[in-house]
């Protein structure tokens, strides 16, 4: 590994982290805007045109707020938890390819690391995300936070299972754990207009994964760990200032990860019509990818604006008694089809 490659990679990591953090900030803006329009409000309008500078204002506000540490917290864990949340949320982006292989100076521009086990890597990193929440809830010496932490750990374990299982179908179809291979397997189209996206043969898997992923990212209708009307703010009740913002960032980063994952696994990643001059041809896949991610984010927000919240036991029952068997059925069906085709 040469020094230039190392430097280039480092630079790439920094750029991607910066892009992701900006995307997170604007995901918040996007959510506020979309929810506001769903609810016949305007959303942020005051800071900059269309409130576009709102994320900046929020960041300044959160940074300059007093950082309160309540009495009798479990200090080490209390400080560790938000960092853990944010780190695990950001680590997942290391394996996500944002576009086709575009080599500049021997470095792939649109992906930090092309892992052979990309899918497993992202699943494992996201399974670590529960620690941030569970430990935050437990360490803050608050009953609401404790209940939130307990809820989230049970919820995350339950839904991680369904999420993992629902991906098996896709993996069976593409025969690889490498995200790039999976996306490449979805290139092309039948009759020129039906793309070979996994969502069509894997509709069941898509539904299962999306639902489980929404649950894993603690979003409505599965936002029980932070259900504000019940637990005030759940696991981050006792957090303020930047530590609170870190949980917030982690939540939105996780939303982005999930949207990226769904795009890559089910929606054909960056595939889309490519035309025009060379520069446009390199940029178009990025555009398709971003548009798909944006559409999924919109779906997320749309669901949030529409549905009420589950109750805890209903959530568990839904995960174990409905989603999990459904994912199993999907695995069974897909493997049967794959076996039949192999014959």
């Amino acid at each position, binding site marked *: 590994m040469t020094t230039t490659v190392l430097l280039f990679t480092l630079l790439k990591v920094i750029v991607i982290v910066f892009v992701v953090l900006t995307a997170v900030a604007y995901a918040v803006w996007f959510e506020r805007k979309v*929810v506001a329009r*769903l*609810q*016949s*409000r305007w959303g942020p309008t005051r800071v900059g045109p269309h409130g576009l500078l709102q994320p900046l204002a929020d960041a300044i506000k959160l940074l300059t707020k007093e950082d309160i540490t309540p009495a009798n917290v479990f200090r080490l864990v209390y400080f560790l938890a938000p960092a853990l949340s944010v780190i695990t949320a950001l680590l997942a982006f290391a394996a996500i390819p944002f576009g086709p292989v575009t080599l500049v100076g021997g470095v792939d521009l649109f992906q930090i690391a092309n892992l052979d086990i990309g899918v497993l890597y992202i699943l494992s990193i996201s399974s670590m995300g529960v620690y941030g929440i569970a430990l935050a809830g437990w360490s803050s010496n608050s*009953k*609401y936070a404790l*209940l939130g932490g307990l809820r989230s750990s049970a919820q995350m374990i339950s839904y991680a299972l369904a999420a993992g299982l629902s991906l098996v179908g896709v993996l069976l179809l593409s025969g690889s754990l490498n995200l790039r291979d999976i996306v490449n397997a979805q290139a092309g189209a039948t009759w020129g207009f039906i793309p070979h996206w996994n969502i069509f043969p894997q509709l069941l898997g898509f539904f299962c994964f999306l639902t489980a992923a929404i649950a894993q990212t603690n979003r*409505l*209708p599965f*936002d*029980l760990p932070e*259900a*504000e*009307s*019940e*637990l*005030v703010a759940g696991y981050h009740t006792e957090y303020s200032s930047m530590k609170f913002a870190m949980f917030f960032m982690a939540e939105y980063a996780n939303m982005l990860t999930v949207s990226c994952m769904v795009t890559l696994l089910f929606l054909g990643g960056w595939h889309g019509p490519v035309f025009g001059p060379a520069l446009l041809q390199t940029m178009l896949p990025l555009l398709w990818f971003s548009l798909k991610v944006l559409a999924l984010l919109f779906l997320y927000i749309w669901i*949030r*604006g*529409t*549905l*009420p*919240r*589950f*109750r*805890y*036991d*209903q959530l568990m029952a839904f995960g174990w008694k409905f989603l999990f068997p459904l994912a199993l059925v999907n695995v069974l069906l897909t493997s049967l089809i794959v076996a039949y085709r192999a014959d």
Partner: protein
Amino acid sequence: MFQETIAPVGKRTMILNMGPQHPSTHGVLHLILELDGETILKATADIGFLHTGIEKTCEAKTYHQAITLTERIDYLCPLTNNLCYVLAVEKLLGLEPPSRAQWMRVMLNELTRIGSHLVWLGTHANDIGATTVLLYCFREREEILNLFEAVSGQRMMTSYFRVGGLALEPPAGFLKRVEKVMATFPDHIDEYEELLTRNRIWMARTKSVGILTKEDALDFAVSGPTARASGIDWDLRRDNPYSSYDKFSFRVPLRAEGDIYARYIVRMEEMRESLKIVRQALEGMPEGPIQVNAPAVVLPQGDNRKTEMEALIQQFKIVIDGFCVPPGEVYQAVESPRGEMGYYIVSDGTAHPYRVKVRSPSFANLQALPRLAEGRLLSDLVACIGSIDIVLGEIDR
């Protein structure tokens, strides 16, 4: 009988102080919960954080001044409180306001009911997680508040009803405005119902949750929609008509299940019935004076004060000394959006009420809350609080 002491039942339980600062206690309700995991073993309500001594204050005011206090008891249905108090005083005085005033009172009361139910629906849905409904409800409530502002100059603390009639003649074109706003309402209610009524999650959260049996409802003196959802067919507007409610035809929604969903359905239907009443009031609004002819009680209207000495003197006398009310006692109940709102007024013959007692529906309804929530999950408690539609100002007075 339920014990109210707070001793842990077992060792592995947790006491959770929910409120008085909590997003879903609808004000400053303090609930002391004993939890086993998330299951509520015992719930005890602690009230009084909003106790402002309105009943005591009334004793120092004249009968007219006390009107402004009544609407501060329940800030979601000020006109219902106005009406109840005014009716009680009129009964003591033996006055019967002219029919135009009565019909206006009915119409505004039903608008208040719709407005109050909208706030209930929005906050209740928000508690269960459907945030959008809240915004929709407040959007429509704004229209109703604008109507109140047009008629009385105030959005919430209206003080529009006076002993003997109304404070002012409604502005020109007011009825047209009401008609225009009301014309949009059936669609709006359909919109809420589309979001909630057949929603699987909503049904799962509300059906057979927080069941209040008919017997319990009677025992705790639960009234209003909460009682009607438990099968108690009882509506003061129909069964003990006041202010010419007997001239209107409307249905009283009734459900037997007694769960949160039943209460939800009853209130939704009540909104539609209220719309009907408003429409009838608009169609049949009688012409005529808005105040009874009782110079000793009613402030002189219009230009009289500028041209007639007697009117001016009357004005001064009523404003400064108030009017005397013959000794006696009266209990007047009206159907508020939350249930039986009653005013018990004792007069000793002076210009100040000797004793004013407010029988507030939420006060009684809240007593039933532990019965609804005990043995269920914390999330159900939140739904239960929303479903009995409490207003803490009215509970603590």
